[in-house]
């Protein structure tokens, strides 16, 4: 049996008068420090006709600010020996750099300059170039990639049209074309404000110095003027009927995604759903790998994972790629009957123990990286105002029982709560 080794990190928090929520986590084992900012805005906040804008805007944040030239952000961080990036998701956008510890001030100053003074640097030319870059990102990651459209087709199938998670994160060409410099100004004023952001610092720093640097650089940035709330994120616990979409694509083997509506990230029930996913599709000891890859030999790859959506309801997704020669129809039927069998027979405490051992190890392994620690702190601070939840994850997973998993499986994996997205080679046809 795996031994439990709980990893805890120190967590301190404070808040500036302008609403910026700050988390500090000291660790002096390596001479590096991670700076991580989460803005509580993602593709869910886009208005009609502006799909893809949150992500396009993320690109614009690397195009300079009042005291930083275009692309100088990258250059200053790399010259300092640091790494950096940003990413956009349905519910949030994050920006992060890891630096040698004596360069903490640089990272904080760069983030503050673009939070406080972005607009003086914005030009139509920069917007047009980044629009072209993002269109090429879309071609590369979605349109010219086998199965690449699943990222937009699955949420489209699994959330109703009026729901903020329904539309494409990367956006349509038409909407990207429509984005204007006025949209940039408006989005910035509405969402990129200190009271809509969380700043985390993890690694080798002096807490007194960090506090004073944060106050110095971020303290005079004004609070936002308020945002209109998101439309209702509520959806019923189940789809209510089987949902299904078949996509003919430039692929040589079929691949099927099966999504189940599941409890929102962070709820008690979420942990049972997450463990169910690991039992069903994580690694070679999972139910689907053993059944579909090893025994029936109709698939080559399986996985199962949650989207970790903290608003409304989450999705648990199984993803299975066929062995060449296996039809889409057969792949889908075999996956369905395995899920039926799990619903009928349930999982065992051995299944749970295997899944929890893997998940707990992965949580500890991720804690090695200052960047990962800072990102987790920002996530729990953004969604729940409680970064210390980063220390509670292993305990929450360890308290999941087979009964809890079976309760999730029997209520959430039944036929009326399945959304199937099936990719087949062009011309194959499907029942």
């Amino acid at each position: 049996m795996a031994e439990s080794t709980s990893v805890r990190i120190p967590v301190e928090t404070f808040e500036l008068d302008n609403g910026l929520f700050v988390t500090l986590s000291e660790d002096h084992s390596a001479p590096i420090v991670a700076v991580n900012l989460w803005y509580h805005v993602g593709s869910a906040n886009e208005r009609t006709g502006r799909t893809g804008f949150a992500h396009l805007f993320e690109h614009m944040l690397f195009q300079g600010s009042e005291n930083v030239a275009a692309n100088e952000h990258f250059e200053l961080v790399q010259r300092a020996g640091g790494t950096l990036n940003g990413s956009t998701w349905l519910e949030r956008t994050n920006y992060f750099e890891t630096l040698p510890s004596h360069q903490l001030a640089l990272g904080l100053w760069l983030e503050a300059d673009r939070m406080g003074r972005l607009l003086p640097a914005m030009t139509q030319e920069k917007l047009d170039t980044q629009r072209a870059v993002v269109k090429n990102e879309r071609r590369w990651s979605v349109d010219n990639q086998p199965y690449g459209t699943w990222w937009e087709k699955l949420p489209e199938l699994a959330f109703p049209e009026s729901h903020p998670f329904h539309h494409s994160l990367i956006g349509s060409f038409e909407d990207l074309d429509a984005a204007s410099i006025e949209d940039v100004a408006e989005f910035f004023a509405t969402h990129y404000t200190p009271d809509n952001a969380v700043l985390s610092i993890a690694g080798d720093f002096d807490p007194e110095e960090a506090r004073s640097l944060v106050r110095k650089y971020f303290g005079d940035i004004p609070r936002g003027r308020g945002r209109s709330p998101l439309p209702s994120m509520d959806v019923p616990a189940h789809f209510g009927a089987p949902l299904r979409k078949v996509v003919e694509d430039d692929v040589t083997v079929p691949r099927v995604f099966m999504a189940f509506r599941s409890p929102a990230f962070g709820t008690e029930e979420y942990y049972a759903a997450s463990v169910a996913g690991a039992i069903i599709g994580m690694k070679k000891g999972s139910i689907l790998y053993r059944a579909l890859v090893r025994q029936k030999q109709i698939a080559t790859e399986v996985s199962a994972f949650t989207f970790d959506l903290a608003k409304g309801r989450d999705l648990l997704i199984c993803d299975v790629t066929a062995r060449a020669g296996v039809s889409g129809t057969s792949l889908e039927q075999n996956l369905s009957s395995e899920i039926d069998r799990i619903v009928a027979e349930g999982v065992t405490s051995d299944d749970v123990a295997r899944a929890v051992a893997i998940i707990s190890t992965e949580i500890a392994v991720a804690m090695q990286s200052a960047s990962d620690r800072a990102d987790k702190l920002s996530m729990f601070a953004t969604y729940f105002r409680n970064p210390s939840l980063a220390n509670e994850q292993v305990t929450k997973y360890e308290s999941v029982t087979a009964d809890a998993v079976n309760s999730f499986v029997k209520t959430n994996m039944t036929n009326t709560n399945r959304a199937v997205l099936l990719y087949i080679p062009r011309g194959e046809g499907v029942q």
Partner: protein
Amino acid sequence: MQLLVAPMRRLPVVTAILVVDGGATTEPPGKEGVADIAAHALVEGTQKRSADDLVMALERLGTSISASADWESSILKMTVLSPNLPGALGLMAEMVTSPRFDNAAVERIRAERLSEIIQTRSEPGVLADETFSLELYGAGSRYGIPLGGSAESVTAIAVDDVRGYHRCGFNPKAATLILAGDIDTDAARQLADRIFGAWKDAGGETAARRVTTAGGKPRQLRVVDRSGAQQSELRMGHVGVPRSVPQYFDVVVMNAVLGGLFSSRINLNLREAHGYTYGASSYFDWRRDAGPFVVSSAVQSEVTGAAVSEVMNEIHRIRSDAIQEEELSLATSYLAGVFPIRYETADAVASGLAGLVVFGLPDDYFTSYRSNILGVTVEGVQRAAQNFLRPEDLNVVVAGNPDLVLSQLTQLGLGEVGVVRVDA
């Protein structure tokens, strides 16, 4: 068996890597892919345990072992909470010393590899990579054929080939165990002795390495026919230099300036100045023999010719003109400064040590790395560009829509452009 230990005590995590010298370059001709299949088949059970029992035993300890072949080695790797290390390491040893190699299991791994080959025929990036390697090296060189083999070579592999590869290649003389993380040197030595001490050479002849150098082929320009493509997967380059090249650090810094960093010339040109792409980069693929020098990007179909032309210009420019001091200092201060970030995790440290083993680098490689990087000069960079970049030899491969890109490439005047068709 050699043992390398890198204690890192902050978290109860250990990464274990077993490197076995050999790899794809020691495969018998016609059986390309057998090294990787042998590695994957190690996970399919031992003399004592079925595949399911082995996998379950590892996963109950919270881990799994990945096994794969590289050009010059086979590598088994796992990351585990330190209290579970003895148990998991025992399972790793069992896999290596007494694999089961059931006919049915090996056959399944082989069929999955064939399926993967069929699957990648729809992946433009993979098609571009594989066509590029073949054009550079030819099918007579091991580097010309994909690491995992071709449909033809994998079809020719029998179970006895897999057993034979393991018997000859997997012996303690060729192996190094690397433990990085929450363990000290004495404990590591005792553990390695206890677990791997009984591992004996099975007596097979270690296969000779195949010559992998290319035979000086003239430049080729190829379009891989993807009529429905939304974009062009572009690869440009030529045979590069071996890892043992004395000017290694000059080449690394030169490449960082040319296309290795986000702020490199090629990326700023293609992405930030022109908006042709989401990203463009260049790299020397370091191997024991000369691996490829590659410029890689996915560009909008309509500007494929212009992108090729811009890359050509950048390669000419870095040879003809000395780089600016600011460009040099950006590259060297980044590469030297990022060192503690790059080696933050046990996995990264163990993988870095595996690189030392594979390439036979000195023990002080990591301690002298920063000073070696910071010692590179503007002149050194220019010499490296002049010696190791050969504009007249640059091959160009585009996986894309021939109707859109063929005429653009022809108009560049670099030579005749051939079209390659891939059966689905």
